């Protein structure tokens, strides 16, 4: 008798656990919709430097900052980018480490791995490829608008 009761209790618990899955899933989906900010992405164009300033080797460090409305407040967003050329093409590398999102720093003395993430010793070469450390993906390349003339401004599109 006691044994049977226990078995019934166990079965009920199993059914409850199974029923909880879709309920929790639904609650999570609802929560995600309610708590996620509406994705109104406004395009930002920022002048970084003149085309002639971008070095073929080595990196040019720039900080872009722009204003963005976030909820009620207009916030200033600022982030570092590194400019260089890859096979002649101008590229801008994001300073956000692809491992856990720490800020990558420029070590001007190193030529082989000039970009260092201090958090877990990640190292990247001047083209953003991983040299060492826990990161596996290369640094993100940001969208640019490259001018025709040498003294035109390289624009970053965000």
């Amino acid at each position, binding site marked *: 008798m006691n044994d049977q009761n226990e078995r019934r209790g166990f079965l009920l618990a199993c059914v409850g656990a199974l029923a909880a899955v879709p309920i929790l899933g639904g609650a999570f989906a609802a929560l995600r919709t309610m708590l996620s900010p509406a994705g109104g992405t406004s395009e930002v164009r920022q002048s970084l430097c003149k085309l002639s300033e971008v070095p073929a080797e080595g990196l040019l460090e720039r900080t872009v900052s722009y204003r963005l409305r976030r909820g009620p*407040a207009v916030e200033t*967003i600022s982030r570092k980018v590194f400019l260089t050329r890859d096979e002649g093409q101008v590229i801008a590398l994001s300073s956000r480490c692809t491992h856990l999102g720490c800020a990558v720093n420029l070590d001007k003395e190193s030529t082989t791995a000039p970009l260092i993430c201090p958090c877990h010793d990640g190292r990247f070469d001047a083209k953003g490829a991983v040299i060492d450390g826990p990161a596996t993906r290369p640094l993100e390349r940001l969208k640019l608008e490259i001018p025709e003339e040498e003294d035109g401004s390289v624009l970053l599109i965000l």
Partner: protein
Amino acid sequence: MTSDPLAGTILADDVVDSSGEARGSSGWLQTLGFCALVLLILQGLSGLGLAFHYVPSADLAYDSIRALEADIAGGKLLRALHYYGASFLIACILLAMLRIFLFGAYKAPQRCAWVSGLPLFMLVVASGVTGELLPWTEQAYFATQVRTSILAATPGMGPDLSQIALGGDEVAGPSLLRFYVLHVILLPAGILALLVFHLRRLCRKGLSNGSAGSKPWDLRQLLRQSLMALLVSAGLFYMAWAEIAPLGAIVEPGDTAFEASPEWHFLWLNQLLHIFPGELTAIPAFWIPTLLLLGALLLPFIDRSSARGIAKRKFVVGFGLLILIGIIALSLASLSHKPENRAAPPYELGINPVERQGYLLLRRHNCMQCHKYGEYGETDFDAPDLDFMTPDMSVSEIAEIIADPSETLGTEDMPGYHYVPEEDRRALATYLIKIQQQ
């Protein structure tokens, strides 16, 4: 269920493993849980005190804490109590858990207390994590960046979780508000609910002691608990009085000279993240902590024997100690890496918005990589100190120099910042004029 015959073995067990008197609900080690309770109440009180002064907005959070420390008598002590209290509380809970584990006190009839105690501990840790962002300092910013990236490594719904927590893709104003709500409403509510359950269990079944059948409360134990809690609280007050809680500089994401360091109880996890390659981040970020927690939660159901003595639980205790040694070793290994921080100086409280903007720009564009500012900044360069430069220049003149030093000053040592918008250069100049020492 089994009752009387086993109770006998439990007692016998205790006599065997204790040296001298039988181990009961009384003893100095059994006061740790009570100390944790007192510390938790103190956290609630100091937190309430802080809540009267704190403003949860990215614009004002940092200044509200600076103002609290500058203007309010005992403001520094209040924040230090809350800051160090968190560490005291977590240390106290960890020690209590270690005691319970070693003494086998997680076994029936205190199973429910152990099972409710673990999530309680997790909520306390989560309170620490969410609370750390609130001062809105660079340490807060970068530590939270790493932590939400760890959250994002959760298999399946990681990116969603991180986005819900942050209210966006990165740490910003909405994240601060969310963490605030978690820290002052949701987590305390959860802690309170679990605590009521936890304490009711303990009071009904007796303190999680090593033996059955002892009196739940006896006067001597009550005295021991009170004395111990008094000592621990006195220690906390002394620490908070002697050592100001570190604050650091306000968030400026463009200033990447700062390297956040994890809290002491997360060092082992940080070291694991260091060891595992990026494609396996989910292992240290999710699987190891989850399995550890599940293992601990299921411990009373795995180790079902009634034996409480260490000698009779060699396998369980050995395995637990192995994990503990591993965690300590990882933490120590993590300590070998000392972050070299070029901490930014704080700005004067009450400066106007343009000057404040100038201060942030000073950091955003790494001026202190070459210029010294007070005690801060690099010294290898010949660049003049920021607070000892030509005093009588106008905002426009300085803004021009910043844009093109080779044209205006004839020096090639400083790069031109013509790409910085004029409005920003003028703000920078305004701040520079403000900080000149005569």
